[in-house]
């Protein structure tokens, strides 16, 4: 066997970020001196349990997508530790990738000349799923996101919403322990969004941990067990959102992001 499984170091949480910092540097072409530093995440810590849905809220550039990429692990942290099911992303990337499904926000992440089914079968094969099982899981995933009728259509003819649903179907192919969703309801119509929320809740009930980056307060209020509010790479608040409706959640968010100095880290979101 080419790659051996690494033993998990702390198998308690589905996802754990411990004092994670991520800085993007822009360097001068010749001298390689640092011209500009962007603190995408500063000392962020949180945990996500199996079957839990955690919403990441925050303005553009607050670090939501960076957080997802660190868990995926498309990015590696500059300091701190990210673990998935006890596997650290830096030292056991392969084990992490086997457990994480990622629905990217970008529309352009498929082969446009292939059909939805052909795309999914291709990506399923890369997930070490045997041939016959690839087809079964593809059909099942297409059905789950409501794309069974469009399975034979080339992806270049898809609308934004269909791309979005196909990305979610792709993330589900490997039956992940952790599902990362980057603005999944963007471009979805009301019916498709509602169907997606139902699906998220079904998945969480089956034990899948979901990390959801969103700007949609209705979505966060509807499906999330907890929300984390990020701003300029800092975690301003982390709180359960049970019994909060969309309006209450939005008010809390505005209060916290406009007056961040009033809320110490990880304090409960005021209802």
């Amino acid at each position, binding site marked *: 066997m080419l790659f051996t499984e690494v033993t998990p170091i702390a198998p308690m949480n589905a996802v754990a970020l411990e004092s994670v910092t991520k800085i993007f540097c822009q360097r001068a072409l010749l001298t390689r001196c640092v011209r500009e530093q962007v603190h995408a995440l500063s000392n962020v810590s949180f945990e996500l349990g199996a079957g839990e849905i955690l919403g990441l809220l925050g303005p553009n550039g607050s670090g939501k997508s960076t957080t997802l990429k660190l868990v995926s*692990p498309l990015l*590696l942290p500059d300091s701190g530790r990210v673990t998935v099911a006890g596997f650290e992303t830096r030292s056991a990337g*392969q084990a992490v*990738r086997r457990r*994480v499904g990622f629905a990217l926000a970008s529309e352009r992440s498929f082969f446009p*000349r292939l059909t939805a089914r*052909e795309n999914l079968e*291709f990506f399923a094969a890369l*997930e*070490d799923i045997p041939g016959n099982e690839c087809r079964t899981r593809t059909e099942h995933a297409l059905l789950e996101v409501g794309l069974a009728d469009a399975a034979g259509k080339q992806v270049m003819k898809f609308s934004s919403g269909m791309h979005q649903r196909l990305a979610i179907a792709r993330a589900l192919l490997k039956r992940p322990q952790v599902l990362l969703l980057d603005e999944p309801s963007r471009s979805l119509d009301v019916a498709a969004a509602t169907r997606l929320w139902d699906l998220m809740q079904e998945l969480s009930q089956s034990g899948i941990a979901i990390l959801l980056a969103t700007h949609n307060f209705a979505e966060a209020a509807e499906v999330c067990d907890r929300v984390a509010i990020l701003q300029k790479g800092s975690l301003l608040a982390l709180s359960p959102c049970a019994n909060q409706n969309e309006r209450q959640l939005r008010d809390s968010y505005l209060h916290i992001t406009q007056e961040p100095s009033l809320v110490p880290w990880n304090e409960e979101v005021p209802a």
Partner: protein
Amino acid sequence: MILTKITAVLRKDLLTAVRYRNGFVFNLISPALQLATFYYLARAVGPQFRPDGMSYLMFLIVGTGFYTFLIAGIHSFLHAIQEAQQTGTLEFLMTTSTPAPVLLFLSTLSSFAGGFVQFVLYVASGILLFATAVKVSLFGALLVIALSLVIAAAIGLFAAGLQLSIHKGSAVLWLLGSCAWLMAGTLFPVNALPRPLQLLSNWLPFTHSLTGMRLAIFDAGNQAALLHEIKFLAFFSCALFPAGIGFFAWTLRRARQYGRLAFY
């Protein structure tokens, strides 16, 4: 499991190629046109010019055919990364359970397979159409191909790594390809070059690939010369392949660290 992956990648590449219909047809026509060009070029040069003791037409066919096969193979590594960056699939591919170097090798399979078929057709057409005498060492030819492939893969890994780090791997490959085109004995024998360039050409792996291949097809009796070329190729393979793997792994890690995986 690897067979499932190979099948999936080849199927994806074939479906994509067929659905770009015009490009597919042009790709089928262009080797025939190239073959005709070589024929008329060799006729213009005349039959008295016999580089390395063979007809100029076959010298051209083997030189250009094998050079094109290797360069296209190297380009396929770069192209795999570039295309994945431009279509936006790279980030997702890097989150799959298949390790990145395996993915990269899988992505180049159809290019290498297509290039190999084209090279065999080139040589076979040349031999059949122009009734050229051959003295083939099949084992020698296969060994030259295998070692040349390892070298091409190593250079391809460097190119892919450069694409990840400086996003302009194509510029470096263009330079390398031009040097090889000039000095590796593709269109004319190396001894036509000035002495300093001949010495430099000796350190280009392609020079030994092309000479080795010509010897294996047309002069199998000259085993000492063929063995000499194979030794050079084995040396380049052993030196370049681990370096290529190491360089690609290093650039990939840096791209993950600096968040530049999808930049192009």
